[in-house]
């Protein structure tokens, strides 16, 4: 009896693997040339607003201590 349960579990697992692979295999894919072109395009469109690429000036240092104003 336990042997049958064991083999049922293996069959179940194998069936799940097949089902999972069927899901993955059915996916629509695009060519790497297209995908890569889009990755490049995204980088270039956003490069000017990437602070680690353009650097930030001392005056806009985000971690500089802010001085408070006291109104007399």
């Amino acid at each position: 009896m336990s042997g049958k349960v064991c083999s049922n579990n293996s069959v179940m697992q194998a069936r799940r693997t097949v089902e999972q692979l069927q899901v993955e295999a059915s996916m629509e894919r695009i060519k790497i040339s297209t995908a890569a072109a889009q990755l490049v395009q995204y980088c270039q469109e956003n490069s000017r607003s990437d602070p680690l690429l353009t650097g930030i000036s001392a005056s806009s240092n985000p971690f500089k201590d802010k001085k408070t104003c006291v109104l007399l």
Partner: protein
Amino acid sequence: MSIQDVSPCVKCYIMEVQPNETLTNLKAESDTLKTKLEDERAKLHDVELHQVAEKVDGLGQFIMKTRRTLKGHGNKVLCMDWCKDKRRIVSSSQVSVWIIVTFSEEHAVTMPCTWVMACAYAPSGCAVACGGLDNKCSVYPLSLDKNENLAAKKKSVAMHTNYLSACSFTNSDMQILTSSGDGTCALWDVESGQLLQSFHGHAADVLCLDLAPSETGNTFVSGGCDKKANVWDMRSGQCIQSFETHESDINSVRYYPSGDAFASGSDDATCRLYDLRADREVAIYSKESIIFGASSVDFSLSGRLLFGGYNDYTINVWDVLKGTRVSILFGHENRVSTLRLSPDGTAFCSGSWDHTLRVRWAALIGIHIFGTRGTVV
């Protein structure tokens, strides 16, 4: 009603061995499908990313010094996360969780927990989540009152059957996604602690996860000791894509800012880039001289730079498009365990087994001309 609608335990009973569904036949079928998958992916492999990127201007020299070193932990730093206000971070270590209020003061609120391998800031900035060897993920609401005992307000949300390796709030304070040494990921309702969805598919410990940028829908990616990176549909619990090209544990995964790709860092000493629409690995970031595992990866805002923290104490900065290393950042005196870009992309913070966190940003002086072909910025 199909077999899909039936619960797993009932499936066990009603399943009879059909003539075409013996174990051997199923294994043969899965082998055929695997080969088919590889063939389909190979057909679309018409070019390499770095070839497409040949026309792109190279990056100049990088100067990114440590601007702040935070030393309060006194223990190996295991994880850190930024608050959306960009000025606070939460970090965790072997014995505590620590919230830094501002960078000008090293203000720490210590909450004793066991080995805290994961921590995350809530989107509102009003709570943090953390967990580790306690197998749980707990949420602590934050208070401005320094004297308040935050540990008393702790709320246990997630319960796994092995260590918590990573956690992340979704786009609200209401839900948390977790990954665990028990091989699963799970989505939880914070208020009730209810399990909303579980994600099964990894064959070993899951070490990391990252949520897709909100514009690209309800998916997330996870990486594990089974060397696989899986992409999941959060609503159905279904694994929709799986990548198995790493040669060892995947310690870190991070989405490319557009959501169309993700990077991974592994004990095999490489970082890799996977494009989701091509369903394939499209770049490997490695060097013969780099032999220690990558523990943590993150992109710069434009996706052009990939920062990798390594077990050889360094941070390697990679040109994502060209596949070359742009810079090595020194400073840590032990393994780099965690690394994250600030929410506005101006800085990044790394945490290490040397008990410190270091914050770096790029100074304007001395570097950088970057622009499209023919123009100078």
